[in-house]
């Protein structure tokens, strides 16, 4: 429809934090939940009880004023263990995301710029992607002494190929843009092109991908702990909490659903942040989704 004559529309208030919250509810909601969880994890010694102290006389008590989420089969406070378990999950999630993104970015950039590197590397990535992530992590962990760093490395490894693919495709498409060709033609050196054009273009999808990697990492870490292929059992993680209390599902479901719900909540929050970021950074997709 054609433009109307002089009719000045009311300009909505586009500044301020509340506008941002209204336009990006999923992003803000997810971040809020995550912030709460992170805070709780950081302040664990202050807000939770002792996660390791076992009082067998108190075993399998349902949630009460004393034990917010009840006690497990050794009389340990489930709430305390759940809060402490958040630490491992968040640390693993963040570390895996950071490592996978960094390594993936480097390799992806190389692949995007060098034809030889690309052909070798992409084949390697195809091979790596063919191995289901959990199994690769299991194999990796089972061959080493269990520790948090080993688990982080084991989970990060299978996440790298996807990042490499993403970075490479962004690099390839940005390189073909006229303004990049112009920059090259006018003699701009490579580092500057990288800094000015390539890297800024890779950042948005990379950040979105990082959240999905983090969510996946938290899930895989929990699965590994559950299967007994994760961090050493002395440290309470949500996965090994559920594993050790399995047989009490009927008697004391809180021992399983305390950590279970926490796990689901955190992963959901991370996924929501990812979706929210994606909608925020690329509104064209948002309108459809």
């Amino acid at each position, binding site marked *: 429809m054609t433009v109307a004559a002089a009719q000045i529309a009311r300009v909505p208030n586009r500044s301020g934090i509340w506008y941002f919250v209204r336009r990006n509810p999923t992003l803000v909601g997810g971040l809020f939940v995550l912030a709460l969880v992170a805070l709780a994890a950081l302040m664990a010694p202050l807000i939770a009880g002792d996660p390791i102290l076992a009082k067998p006389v108190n075993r399998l008590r349902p949630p009460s004023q004393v034990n917010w989420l009840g006690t497990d089969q050794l009389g340990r406070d489930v709430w305390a263990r759940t809060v402490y378990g958040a630490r491992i999950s968040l640390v693993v999630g963040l570390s895996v995301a950071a490592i996978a993104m960094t390594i993936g970015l480097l390799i992806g950039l190389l692949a995007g710029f060098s034809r030889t590197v690309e052909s070798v590397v992409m*084949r390697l990535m195809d091979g790596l992607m063919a191995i289901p992530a*959990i*199994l690769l992590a*299991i194999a990796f962990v089972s061959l080493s002494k269990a520790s948090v760093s080993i688990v982080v490395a084991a989970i990060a490894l299978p996440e790298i190929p996807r990042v490499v693919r993403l970075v490479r495709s962004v690099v390839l498409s940005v390189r073909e843009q006229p303004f990049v060709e112009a920059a090259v033609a006018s003699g701009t050196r490579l580092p500057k092109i990288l800094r000015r054009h390539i890297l800024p273009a890779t950042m948005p999808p990379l950040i979105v991908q990082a959240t999905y990697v983090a969510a996946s990492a938290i899930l895989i870490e929990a699965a590994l702990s559950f*299967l007994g292929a994760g961090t050493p059992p002395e440290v309470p993680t949500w996965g090994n909490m559920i594993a050790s209390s399995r047989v009490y599902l009927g008697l004391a479901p809180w021992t399983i659903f305390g950590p279970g719900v926490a796990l689901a909540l955190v992963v959901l929050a991370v996924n929501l942040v990812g979706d929210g970021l994606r909608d925020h950074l690329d509104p064209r997709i948002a309108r459809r*989704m």
Partner: protein
Amino acid sequence: MGAFIIRRLLSTLLVMGLVGVFIFLLLHLSPGDPAAIIAGDNATPAQIEAIRTSLGLNDPLHVQFGRWAVRVLNGDLGISIFSNVPVATLIGQRVWPTISLAFTTIVLAVALALAAGVLAAWKAGSLADRLVMILSVVGFSVPVFVVGYLLIYVFAITLRWLPVQGYSPLAEGFWPWASHLILPSIALGLAYVALIARITRTAMLDVLAEDYMRTARAKGVATGPMLFKHALKSAGVPIVTVVGIGIALLIGGVVITETVFNLPGIGRLVVDAISKRDYPIIQGVILLFSGVYVIINLLVDLSYTLLDPRIRY
């Protein structure tokens, strides 16, 4: 077309080869001495050395790889350290529960996801659509074992509608077989359903906005054929792609699901091997599952030309 198939097959073989190399290297590149770890904390140096020799770990790397590769290609996936039974045999004994689980999961998940995705796209913006989207995100976020235990708690323990765990072979009756697989399939397939429903919705939204859908409407085509014959087929390529890639989720989840529901399949085999550090089993199963994944994705690629006649190789 034939040339394409041959090229794809070669590419597939290459990828499988790489998988083999990776798995082989894993044993040698991970920190720590594999023989010592396999032997356990209480092993004597003599025992460790014995394991090292039995696994041929003293020979140069490429010799080891060559030997290993030849064995694998002959179907010999090694021998379990703890039971001395060939890995291939162990896998063969456990294959049916896993196949049953995979089959029921895939069939139910794809059917449900397509229906949900089509519904969400057709009624875009409505309550049904929002519900599908929300359930998708949730379904994708809750881990398999949590869903599993939740289902067991509600349907098996509390309501007693379905068995708590275990497996009943098909030969012993259809309903026992099916009833033992219902809850595991739901737990395993939930994330898969979420993934496929989302891509179906997106692809369908694109297609429904196309001009040719309006032409179909102008011809008097009814809603059912419009959605499924005209729209869904047109949206097929991205959906089928995700169906193939999502199999990786299923493969990973099989290990967990069989543990939660106590199904005597290949997944449980791997889990038992973890605690015993029985590496040949882990290695053999990874090879098998990777191979399955690669072949499925090859089939997906080949199916494109059936779905979209514009794609010709």
